[in-house]
């Protein structure tokens, strides 16, 4: 499928706020993105013109923000709405190999929905992980360095060399990835074996480091994970905010050109062109 035919569904509800940047990333790369309200997919209170079906799209994006005010837990309400009305559509979407991207709040939603880490199967009945309150108990808005540790499973990082450190900003209060305390070590090992860990927070030498390099205290410094098949991917930092080099914090000292986040979007579009 040509990139110009690739339809991207950027899904919004009340409180999402990064849909414009996410939409523009795909627009600028020549794809056909569309901002779609959840009601358009469920068919609630919409005209027939506005009605959309998830199966019409090749890529689903859950953008960042504070969906439904982050009530109950970050992403929990959006996840509950997805599970109640679109469970089957989502499962089919993933099983067909179509990619889903969750950024920041989108990652929280994917975890609450059970689509990530999805250690066994496509969507778990109950969440297998959680993105909990940062160790600092504060909203952390800061540049972060992410090392690509994925060995090729994730379809969103194929254009990023293994070991490369990308400069991608974080902005969240609940980004600490946690697993059940008594089984955390085993789960991390299994994620490694399945090649499901994608990005880790590192210092400027590429070493795993504590705060503020890791803004939240995440297990094993994990910043992003994918499912077993590599087509569902969630990350806390915001690649859509560094599409261009001039939005990097050190832009005055860098040459013009692509920002570090751009490769995430290029990678997934390349995957769709090749596979669909």
């Amino acid at each position: 499928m040509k990139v110009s035919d690739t339809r991207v569904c950027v899904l919004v509800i009340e409180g999402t706020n990064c849909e414009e940047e996410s939409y523009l990333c795909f627009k600028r790369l020549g794809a056909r993105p569309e901002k779609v309200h959840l009601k358009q997919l469920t068919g609630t209170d919409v005209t027939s013109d506005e009605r959309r079906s998830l199966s019409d799209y090749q890529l689903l994006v859950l953008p960042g923000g504070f969906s439904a005010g982050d009530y109950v837990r970050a992403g929990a309400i959006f996840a509950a709405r997805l599970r109640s009305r679109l469970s089957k559509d989502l499962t089919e979407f993933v099983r067909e190999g179509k990619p889903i991207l969750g950024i920041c709040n989108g990652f929280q939603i994917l975890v609450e929905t059970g689509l990530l880490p999805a250690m066994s199967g496509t969507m778990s009945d109950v969440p297998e992980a959680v993105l909990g309150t940062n160790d600092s108990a504060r909203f952390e808005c800061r540049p972060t360095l992410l090392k690509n540790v994925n060995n090729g499973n994730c379809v969103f990082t194929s254009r990023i060399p293994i070991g490369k450190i990308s400069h991608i900003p974080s902005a969240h209060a609940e980004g600490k990835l946690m697993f059940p305390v008594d089984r955390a070590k085993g789960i991390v090992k299994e994620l490694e074996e399945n090649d499901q860990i994608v990005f880790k927070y590192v210092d400027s030498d590429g070493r795993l480091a504590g705060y503020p390099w890791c803004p939240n205290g995440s297990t094993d410094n994990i910043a992003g994970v994918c499912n077993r098949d590599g087509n569902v991917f969630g990350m806390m930092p915001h690649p859509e905010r560094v599409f261009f080099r001039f939005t990097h914090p050190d832009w005055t000292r860098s040459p013009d050109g692509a920002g570090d986040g751009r490769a995430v979007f290029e990678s997934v579009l390349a995957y769709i062109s090749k596979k669909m």
Partner: protein
Amino acid sequence: MAVAEVRVTLKKGVADPEGRNTLKALELLGFEGIREVRSVKVFEVEMGGRKTEVMKRVEEMCTKLLANPVIHNYSIAIK
């Protein structure tokens, strides 16, 4: 009409940055001898039906939305 009070607490061993920060602030305000402050979330669910039925439904609400089993314990009290 029954009111179910759902208490969502953090499991043992899960960090509680909100509780820890509250403790620090209380100490700065001059309160001494505090051993620990734990943050807890409470929901009140008002609904009709027999107590046993309400209990069952609210239990389901906890597993489906109100608590995340990875870090939360919950308890339900019917009032």
